[in-house]
């Protein structure tokens, strides 16, 4: 099952050639996908050869192959992780029953919604990032951007496979619509808010891959527990690739912080902007923005959808095995709920708080990344520390959406918010400044002034490697 037929029209390890119906469906969709990629994928770099990794197996050892590839020739395909040894549902009302290999009719709609929502984020991020190639700070970064892009494309394939294989005509229609929505287009917006936000510059990009892709990681982790086995196995393999995206984000921000610290040392007034770098305050504002946008992606704190999905054994918790009780019928979760402009602790049925449980793991993860950035500042001898804002800050979804909070999470009035928000979130001047730094550096081994080079390159290659060969 885990053998990958790498040289078929659509590389896969699902015996596609034996499922004529599915093969026909996917082969019909493929040209539309390629058309979408040409229209909405990275602008102007389609003919260049990029040093990309391509998935060729689902085995943990050696699943990836590195070589120069032109992006439209990338081998997008379908890979499911091998079936687990224990094929029993691990949580929810169906705990202990055999996993589902076909869709339970009862949950068809919910599952479709889950798959479509997840699937929609993948092409969305490609669309959001399509112009960044023109301002890449180095060939290494340019290559990483494209790596992320093609893999998001493959993650779209993963969800489309599920739609085509399991959801009949509706599924095929949904798969088409995944290609017809457009990030930021008011008429055909992507489903979730953060995926309609502009990603204008590389600071946005690193924040996006750090925070927004990390939401994706936790969504995939929750789905990889699903009682619907094809979904669980698909998402498990997606996680293998996703790790790199977060590495791009976290290390990208870290390299900016590192460069900023170097520039602070060079100027007696520590005026980083004067030196052509990105000052810590601006970095903090971008953290505040992208962290809060991404926190919204988990959905409402008190959610009947979350309860439904958990109860129906469709979407579990991050590392479900690490919990003792997988039914959680009676437990509750304590959260601060707004009441008449104040916060009051309230016990919410745990199943209804599953989004919050997942968000908790996410927040811890973000904090670990932030701690590593602060190590850089500490080692450089600067007292300033970057911070992950409070989960209530700048939220547009959920129970905190109607109130305003400081980055520390204290409630403030709308007037206070208006007064202080430019101290907390990037304003036009910040954006213009960051944008002014965005000049491409395409020479091998060279890098833009506002970011430090990485410690090591890709696949044991040095930083000074020709990651992109321009046509």
């Amino acid at each position, binding site marked *: 099952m885990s053998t990958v037929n790498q040289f078929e029209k659509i590389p896969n390890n699902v015996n596609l050639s034996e499922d004529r119906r599915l093969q026909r469906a996917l082969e019909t969709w493929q040209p539309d996908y390629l058309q979408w990629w040409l229209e909405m994928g990275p602008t102007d770099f389609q003919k260049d050869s990029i040093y990309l990794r391509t998935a060729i197996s689902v085995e943990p050892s050696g699943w990836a192959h590195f070589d120069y590839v032109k992006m439209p020739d990338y081998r997008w395909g379908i890979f499911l992780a091998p079936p687990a040894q224990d094929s029993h549902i691990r949580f929810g009302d169906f705990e202990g029953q055999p996993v589902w290999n076909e869709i339970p009719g009862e949950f068809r709609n919910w599952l479709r919604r889950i798959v479509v929502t997840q699937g929609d984020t993948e092409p969305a991020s490609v669309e959001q990032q399509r112009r960044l190639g023109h301002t890449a700070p180095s060939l290494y970064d340019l290559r990483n951007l494209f790596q992320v892009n093609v893999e998001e494309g493959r993650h779209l394939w993963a969800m489309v496979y599920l739609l085509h294989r399991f959801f009949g005509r509706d599924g095929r229609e949904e798969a088409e619509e995944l290609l017809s929505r457009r990030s930021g287009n008011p008429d055909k917006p992507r489903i979730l808010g953060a995926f309609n936000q502009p990603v204008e510059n590389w600071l946005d990009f690193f924040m996006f891959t750090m925070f927004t892709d990390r939401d994706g990681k936790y969504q995939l982790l929750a789905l990889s527990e699903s009682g619907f086995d094809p979904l669980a196995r698909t998402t498990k393999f997606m996680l293998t690739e996703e790790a790199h995206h977060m590495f791009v984000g976290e290390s990208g921000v870290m390299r900016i912080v590192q460069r900023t610290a170097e520039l602070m040392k060079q100027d007696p007034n520590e005026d980083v902007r004067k030196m052509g770098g990105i000052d810590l305050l601006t970095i903090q504002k971008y953290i505040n923005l992208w962290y809060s946008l991404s926190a919204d992606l988990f959905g409402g704190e008190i959610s*009947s959808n979350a309860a439904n999905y958990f109860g129906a054994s469709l979407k579990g918790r991050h590392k479900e095995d690490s919990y003792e009780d997988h039914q959680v019928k009676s437990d509750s979760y304590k959260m601060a709920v707004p009441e008449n402009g104040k916060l009051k602790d309230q016990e919410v049925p745990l199943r209804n708080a599953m989004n919050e449980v997942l968000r908790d793991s996410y927040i811890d993860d973000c904090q670990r990344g932030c701690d590593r950035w602060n190590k850089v500042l500490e080692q450089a001898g600067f007292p300033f520390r970057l911070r992950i804002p409070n989960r209530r800050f700048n939220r547009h979804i959920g129970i905190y959406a109607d109130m305003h909070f400081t980055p520390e999470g204290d409630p403030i009035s709308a007037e206070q918010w208006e007064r202080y928000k430019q101290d907390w979130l990037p304003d036009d001047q910040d954006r213009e400044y960051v944008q002014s730094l965005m000049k491409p550096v395409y020479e091998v081994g060279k890098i833009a002034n506002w970011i430090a080079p990485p410690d090591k390159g890709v696949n044991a290659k040095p930083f000074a490697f020709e990651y992109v060969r321009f046509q």
Partner: protein
Amino acid sequence: MISFETSPDSYRHWKLKIDGAIAFLTMDVQEDAPLVPQYKLKLNSYDLGVDIELADAVQRLRFEHPEVKTVVLRSGKGNIFCAGANIFMLGSSGHGFKVNFCKYTNETRLAMEDACRFSGQHYIAACNGTTAGGGYELALACDEIILVEDGNSAVSLPETPLLGVLPGTGGLTRVVDKRKVRRDRADVFCTLAEGIKGQRAVDWGLVDYLAPRSRFDEFVTERAKNWAEREKGKTGSGIPLKPLNPTISNDEILYHNVKLTLDRQRRVATLTVQGPSAGQPENASAICEAGSDFWPLRTFREIDHAFLHLRFNEPEIGMLLLKTEGDLEAVQKMDEILARESAHWFVKEILLFMKRTLKRLDVTSRTIFALIEPGSCFAGSLFELALAADRSYMLDSPDEEVRIALTSLNREFFPMSNGLTRIQTRFLADPDHSESVFSLPQPMKPQDAERAGLVTFSIDDLDYEDDVRVAIEERASLSPDALTGMESNLRFAGPETMETKIFGRLSAWQNWIFIRPNAVGEQGALKLYGSPQRPAFDWKRT
């Protein structure tokens, strides 16, 4: 106590904006302003409070803004039109309230359709996002449905799959009867929790047009103008509906022309209508001048209000006795004036409103007896009250003259929801008779009225008081549930219409489902909605 009086300046959930021939009625439900502080009105969902304001707006548009030809129903929320009736409200409400709530919302939707059909005020639903359940039913009550095409927004009736109940406001009926969606497709649609969007919604007839988000408002306005241009005719200023301001005490509600007294011990309410006095306006312009104080309008508004008050605030009052007081000839004369001036828009609106009020009585689940006694004035429009009653008792006294009279209004102006007049429905077995009663000499004495079949009993004064008392006491002893079912079965003889299906079939089924464990039991779908548990169904089918 639930109050049914409101006006645009005190709406909390709607905004009414008039722009020439087009009115924009914007639903912007305040989450934190529910009728009962037990739930939040999220996603533009509604409760009775929201619908009372809508009903008021629909009514006022007809009387106060005759220049309006198109009403655009739209949402004040970004990506959502309306999520329908608030589920947590339904889950936490008692049975009677739920049924009455559905009944009221149905009456409001029918009033919109009545406005489309008879007042030349066309409704357009501008569905700018999720249009679910009661939200879609609201759209279905409009002449036209425009859905935003953004790849995501759908119309849906998810009650069956999500809640284990039926769409409560005529959705099922309107989908197949009004929009004539093929029933197999309707079957698919009504079991699809997330509904249908885009081109398929158009292809299946679930919506009329799609419009992209960026052109949505423009397209809606275009369509609104298009409808408005088709409607020539009435312009000019409307007639403001002044507040009724009834005096409400524990056992009596005093209006200007109407009095409702409550006998809680016997569970009986008596509604007494005061007939018109002398010196009423005789032509349209004088009638307009009298405005909302004009006797028929004021009186029927008061009657309407009293019915609603009874329904929602006095659930244990099982019987409604209808009485009138005044001069029979004055009512006859009033009816003549109304008939003569019925082409004038304001008079027409009054007649249409009287019709709706009488329909409200038809579907009020109380035993209704009309008592025709000395000093009463059951003529024409007021005699409709007696025709609507389950029984009528007329006192036959040698000392005092008791009479009834038909007028031309009984002949055509007040059809029931089955499309027939109350006289036609009454004499289904003998359609000729329903015509010939109008040629009998009017007014009619008790025995003539009984002989003509217009009253149930004419009883002489020796027996009257006792017979009526016994009839009331006997009635009050019967099971209220059985009576509700029995009366509504008997009241709507004759042909079915969309309206009778909505009130008859739909409410009967909903009524039943609302008490079934699969919906409202401890493990029922409606009870558990939004909770961490999934419903457990009793799988036996009837």
